[in-house]
């Protein structure tokens, strides 16, 4: 919570003024019983109509002042709460945007989204409530006690006993229920989980005919949820009756004490009424407070979750700033364009190495194919090039400069990547292509579209470049999306282009055309192609064969066919008749 409070700093004025005006309002409210006592004692007792009217007007004035103070307080409270949450939301969003890949993997998307939305909203209403009411209640409670002191010290002593008692009740129940609410929340998570599971897995569940068992499981979860809710409800339900007993018990004591004092002539009737009124005011405040406490409890829990995101350390793999990123070129000789110098990678928290001793050089303009089995580390390898994950051994050098010495912008501007998952963003085809290059001309875009074999996709849409793209590109087929994501990377005209299994949804013919077009790219683009299809990488200048995180082979297709068992096996698994042919030739 403390961590989050700094976002309230810009609203210091508001956060002070809001409770201050609340205080003012409460103060005027506390005057009311005094005025009333005066009406009763002087007005009625002294048969003084003039006094009654005068005091009556006084009540009206108090009411108006109270209204003005309250409205002002509400305004400042709303301003502080909204301003706070706006700042917090932006800061959280910025923070999440800044997370590196390792942390993104760890965090989990759906919980990030809930934290950004519903958790922040909860905290906002929590702050608003605290500024508005949480301070008002203690002010009224203690104010009432002080006022009671001004009337009669002996009666006021009853307040001194009652108030701590009430505090114990209120905070005791709050402490008791807080963990219970968390339990309710986690039970709700389970219900949500199984509902989602049954939607995403509907085909499997029905195929195995598990509908009834799933229903039984669901009922178990809702049962547990209802039980925990009822239980915490039972405990929270104690609060009101108990405070009621304490306050009314105090009123009994006050009347008793008042009776003695009146009998002794130390107190007037009106004064007893005033004191009783103060006690009633406390009760009204406490009922309000009780309703509030759930809000506050929830807000605190949510604030904890948000603070949890901020606590994710955010070390970038690369340099944060542009300064001093001058090339530290090695002296002498021709420098290879891109060098993997005995690179290893172990993901944070993982037990074993994902990549071990990757050692190769790539010249400018070359096409590099990367092939290997499921989980052999193909994607991991290409993700190292733009510095998405920190290498844990060795170094990657671009033009002789260790990429760890380059700034994020410098490196990423040179690398264009088409990720495995073809994602487009809400907007138009044009706005999506602009991700690659903000000020791309129409011509540049069409060029990229042509290379990506996406012309028919774009021309088939109403509005062409300005055709609408739904969120996640839902209104396009998988193959169409894939081609557009390739175009998006091409608009950037990157020095290094990485295709991470990004043609999987394309049929063989389109895939072949795409590769042909890529080869003809101007400007010496160095291309990395990750694929499971041997046909896709067959004509690459260099093929890297990965097997369980190790380099099992490096060379051209022909070389690898000769000296790399893993490659041969992959190739033959896709071209069985070539195996026969090879076998025959070998036999001859």
């Amino acid at each position, binding site marked *: 919570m403390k961590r989050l409070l700094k976002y309230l700093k810009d609203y210091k004025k508001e956060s002070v003024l809001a409770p201050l005006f609340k205080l003012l309002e409460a103060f005027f409210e506390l005057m009311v019983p005094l005025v009333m006592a005066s009406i009763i004692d002087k007005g009625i007792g002294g048969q003084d109509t003039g006094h009654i009217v005068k005091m009556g007007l006084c009540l009206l004035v108090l009411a108006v002042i109270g209204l003005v103070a309250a409205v002002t307080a509400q305004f400042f409270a709303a301003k502080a709460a909204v301003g706070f949450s706006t700042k917090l939301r932006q800061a959280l969003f910025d923070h*999440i945007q800044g997370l590196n890949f390792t942390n993104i993997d760890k965090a989990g998307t759906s919980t990030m989204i809930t934290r950004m939305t519903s958790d922040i909203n909860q905290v906002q209403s929590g702050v608003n409530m605290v500024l508005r009411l949480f301070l008002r209640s203690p002010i009224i409670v203690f104010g009432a006690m002080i006022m009671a002191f001004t009337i009669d010290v002996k009666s006021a002593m009853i307040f001194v006993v009652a108030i701590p008692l009430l505090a114990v009740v209120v905070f005791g129940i709050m402490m008791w229920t807080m963990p219970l609410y968390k339990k309710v929340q986690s039970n709700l998570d389970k219900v949500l989980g199984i509902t989602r599971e049954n939607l995403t897995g509907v085909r499997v569940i029905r195929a195995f005919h598990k509908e009834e068992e799933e229903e039984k499981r669901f009922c178990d979860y809702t049962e547990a949820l209802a039980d925990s809710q009822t239980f915490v409800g039972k405990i929270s339900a104690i609060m009101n009756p108990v405070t009621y007993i304490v306050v009314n018990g105090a009123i009994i004591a006050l009347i008793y004490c008042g009776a003695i004092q009146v009998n002794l002539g130390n107190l007037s009737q009106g004064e007893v009424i005033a004191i009783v009124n103060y006690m009633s005011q406390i009760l009204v405040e406490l009922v309000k407070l009780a309703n509030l406490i759930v809000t506050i409890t929830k807000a605190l829990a949510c604030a904890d979750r948000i603070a949890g995101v901020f606590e994710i350390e955010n070390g970038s793999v690369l340099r944060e700033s542009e300064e001093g990123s001058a090339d530290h070129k090695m002296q002498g000789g021709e420098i290879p364009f891109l060098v993997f110098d005995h690179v290893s990678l172990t993901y944070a928290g993982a037990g074993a190495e994902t990549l071990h001793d990757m050692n190769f050089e790539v010249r400018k303009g070359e096409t590099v194919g990367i092939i290997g089995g499921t989980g052999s580390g193909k994607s991991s390898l290409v993700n190292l090039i733009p510095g998405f994950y920190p290498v844990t051994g060795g170094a990657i050098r671009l033009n002789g400069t260790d990429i760890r010495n380059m700034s994020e912008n410098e490196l990423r501007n040179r690398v264009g990547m088409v990720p495995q998952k073809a994602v487009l963003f809400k907007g138009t085809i044009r706005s999506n292509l602009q991700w690659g290059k903000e000020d791309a001309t129409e011509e540049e875009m069409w060029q990229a579209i042509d290379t990506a074999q996406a012309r028919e996709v774009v021309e088939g849409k109403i509005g062409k470049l300005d055709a609408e793209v739904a969120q996640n590109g839902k209104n396009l087929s998988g193959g169409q999306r894939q081609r557009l994501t390739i175009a998006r990377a091409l608009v950037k005209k990157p020095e290094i282009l990485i295709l991470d299994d990004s043609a999987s949804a394309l049929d063989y013919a389109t895939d072949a055309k795409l590769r042909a077009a890529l080869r003809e790219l101007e400007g010496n683009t160095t291309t990395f192609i990750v694929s499971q299809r041997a046909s896709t990488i067959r004509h690459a200048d260099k093929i890297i064969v990965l097997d369980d995180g190790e380099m099992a082979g490096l060379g051209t297709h022909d070389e690898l066919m000769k000296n790399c068992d893993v490659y041969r096996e992959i190739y033959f698994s896709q071209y069985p008749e070539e195996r026969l042919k090879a076998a025959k030739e070998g036999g001859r």
Partner: protein
Amino acid sequence: MAHSTEKKNTSQMTTLKTVLQYIRKYWLLVGLSLILAAVTVVLTLYIPILTGNAVDLLLGKDAVKFDGVFAILKKIGIAMLLTAAAQWVMNTCNNHITYHVVKDIRERAFHRLEELPLKYLDSRSYGDIVSRVIADVDTFADGLLMGFTQLFTGVLTILGTLLFMLVTNVPITLVVVCITPVSFLVAKFIASRTYSMFKLQSETRGEQTSLIEEMIGNQKVVKIFAREEKVKEQFAEINGRLEKCSLKAIFFSSLTNPCTRFVNSLVYAGVGIFGALLAIRGGISVGRLSCFLSYANQYTKPFNEISGVITELQNALACAARIFELIDEEPQVPEVPDAYVLENVRGNVKLENVSFSYVPEKKLIENFNLEVKPGQRVAIVGPTGCGKTTLINLLMRFYDVNSGRILVEGKDIREMTRGSLRTSYGMVLQETWLRSGTIRDNICMGRPEATEDEVIAAAKAAHAHSFIKRLPEGYDTVITEDGGSLSQGQKQLLCIARVMLCLPPMLILDEATSSIDTRTELRIQNAFATMMEGRTSFIVAHRLSTIQEADIILVMKDGNIIEQGNHETLLAAGGFYANLYNAQFAG
């Protein structure tokens, strides 16, 4: 406009009726809660009278009637204890009713979910359905609970107070009654002003949420293109707008309280002045006046609460309507009364004149005939999105044919139970789905009673054993929803193991090995081959190498079956299949 509000009202009424039906089950508790509410209200109203009476006995120095005061104090004590007890029991009842009604509704909704046709589920966003079952029901629960606890006591308090006041003193009561409507006017004025602001706020919020979902959900892409700054700017723009409209909405809505409190003060002042003037003429005792004053405080409070509760209830009803909409959704065609349980399947599958389309305007499969004999392998090929999966939807009866029929062992599949039909097929889909639980739970899904050896044998056959063994807890490793840290290929291996364990008489493999590397695939193919021995199987694949050995190859394009035959005949025909086949060798 008038018409639309009318319509809204009737739909609200039907929703309310449905809600009442759910509550009816708990009528005993509801009755108890209502009685207790009445008791609470009467007692809370009675206590100020007692207090007033007591004060009346404090006449002045040496004139206090202690006996009377004690008697009254005793009464206050008893009334107070009774109220507290009644309050607690009432609250507990309300909690019980609310949370159990909610549980019932959720269970009904889930039950319906299990029965809804895939046609419905495929066309909805899951997020929307989940938010109906979770968030909407939650909001509904809040509203219902608030309604129970505050609406009824609120109304009773107002009526009770009025009654008590009338009995005590008519003129002062009139003063109170005359001033209160102001409170309504103020509340209504504010509510009508804030409605549009709240709407704008929730719209802006929605806009922001979808940006958040998009950008955080695809954050890696954002990073790949180094768009962080741009995205932040975009967010800041919406955030700024949200700040403005939130401030307005929150500020204006928060005016309700001070304003009604102001009216409250007016009532208080009115009662004070008028009562005091009356008291001078002896029209009312001081004690009674004090009692009146505390009524004046109590009387207006429920008005605030009720206006709050009513907005809350309207919100709750809107949410309830959304969940009822789901519950009232047409379920899949029920099974025929004496549905046949499919047994002893040998693998005869026949499609007769089958026509099917998802939407009437767009014809898909027309007049399709196919006969598969036991043990035959049917492969379905074609470019992406050509409707390969549609055929599987029909075989599994996820969708029903529009015309024609599908026969298994000579019987129309619509005449047998869905469960027996579906469990006759072993299905592995491209979209791997695992549930949260242990690896073992996932493999055993189709046969929970399987022994450890059987599980391991199935995992070995699917080439999953070696990676499972390396997991921290082996077969007892708990995986999160949707497989969590497992790679796509590993997940697919688990799905295959799941089917290997059941060994049903027929198989459906829809791109079952698409995420597995070709070498592992080759090994699995061997396992598949053993498994398919003597089993009718349907295979969808885009790797042509995997389907060459099929007995029947169906070539689909744009939803139609354009070619049919085996590898050799199709190649010889030199049609679409031949083109596809040759394309994979093109460089």
